């Protein structure tokens, strides 16, 4: 899109969009590192992920201030208006994703010796498609592609299926050995957190679609079959 006559306006929008991408990048590494900390039992890394969430919060509140200022001073219209509203929504989705990743890292620090590798692997396995969803939706945002956004939006079903199978798998480990219950409960929450992150990714996909197309993806058209 060509530049505004007032060049500072274009620069402000670019800065906002860059901050959203920065938040996206941080959230992405938080998911990867929290599950890496889990799989390697790396408590130091887990602690570091928890701290990284603070950075996400700071950028989010800064983005919010930018948005308030843009609305008050520029009275955005058309695509600019949609971009700014989407940035507001997407930044809070990313902030939530950070919270959930932080929670995984916190729980990774609380696991006792009764956890076996299969249990750790089940979570790590599930984190892969979730990270991919986030990566794909950030690509959709960066390239302003409604097609890519729609693809992410339609793929959430896979994550729901993943979650259901991890849930069942985890139950079998707990049934095998009740000493695993405390750690297992933590890990069920981890799986739920990952599933929630998937939901936030589909929300972001909806905002990207709205920003670019100016229309809404209809919830009715979405493939959905989750039971939990």
């Amino acid at each position: 899109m060509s530049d505004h006559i007032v060049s500072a306006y274009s620069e402000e929008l670019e800065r906002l969009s860059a901050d959203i991408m920065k938040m996206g990048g941080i959230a992405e590494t938080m998911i990867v590192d929290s599950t890496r900390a889990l799989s390697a039992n790396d408590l130091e890394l887990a602690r570091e992920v928890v701290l990284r969430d603070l950075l996400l919060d700071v950028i989010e509140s800064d983005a919010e201030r930018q948005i308030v200022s843009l609305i008050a001073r520029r009275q955005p219209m058309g695509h600019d208006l949609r971009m700014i509203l989407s940035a507001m929504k997407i930044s809070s989705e990313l902030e939530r994703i950070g919270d959930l990743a932080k929670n995984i890292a916190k729980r990774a620090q609380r696991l006792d010796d009764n956890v076996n590798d299969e249990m750790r692997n089940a979570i790590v396995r599930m984190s892969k498609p979730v990270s991919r969803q986030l990566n794909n939706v950030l690509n959709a945002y960066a390239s302003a592609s409604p097609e890519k956004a729609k693809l992410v939006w339609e793929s959430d079903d896979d994550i729901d299926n993943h979650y259901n199978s991890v849930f069942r798998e985890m139950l079998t480990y707990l049934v095998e050995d009740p000493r695993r219950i405390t750690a297992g409960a933590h890990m069920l929450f981890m799986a739920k957190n990952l599933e929630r992150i998937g939901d936030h990714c589909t929300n972001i996909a909806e905002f990207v679609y709205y920003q670019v197309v100016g229309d809404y993806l209809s919830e009715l058209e979405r493939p959905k079959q989750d039971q939990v």
Partner: protein
Amino acid sequence: MDTTQGTPAMMDDTLTLPRSADGAQRIDCRNIKVFYGQAQAIHDVSMSFPDRAVTALIGPSGCGKSTFLRCLNRMNDTIENCRVEGEILMDGENINDEDVDPVLLRSRVGMVFQKPNPFPKSIYDNIAYGPRIHGLANGREDLDAIVEKSLRRAGLWEEVKDRLTAPGTSLSGGQQQRLCIARAIAVQPEVILMDEPCSALDPIATARIEELIDDLRSRYCIVIVTHSMQQAARVSQRTAFFHLGNLVELGDTNQIFTNPREKRTEDYITGRFG
């Protein structure tokens, strides 16, 4: 000038637009072309204006929006060299027909200008003048009632009721503009045209006029030309974007300002015009 480029993006507005009970279009313009001598200022514009709704005409300077507005009550007749082609129908009658009296037409289609232009008369006479010459009042009492009603409708009565004999020019700019609106209303028009009615006013006086426009909407067909897109967004239900004498896009105001169909509209409303 290329006249073929302006295919306007007309949305199907039958669902979204406010209409009078019978869904009537108050004015129907067909293939309007306006020439100043050899130069063509309006290229084949067709659009209609619904009753009981505000339609805003926006576009950069020189895009033809004011010229088009002035067609609607034949104000262009007063400009030498100016020629209007096409049909402008009100109640099925072409207002450009020879047997239409422009003075009578202008009482049906009132106009408010950029700079308030009260007559050099008292506040009372500013309002009473029109009803008098059009014979709308039976005696003094009747005229008093018309003056009061018009001033009330224009939201000015409380401010001027104790000094109706003071000159209209003694009022503030915003009050003068409301006086001009009251003057237009006094002759019971069907349509009110406004050509940048707030551009000489401060934000408070502007807000008063906008409140008044919103109020008048329940009775009249209102067409407003404005340079302020925010004003168009605030007061209108429909917006038409003009560029280089063409109607580029006409649609529901919400749609025009949040998701315009045409790139030229998007560029204009977001401040990207090169």
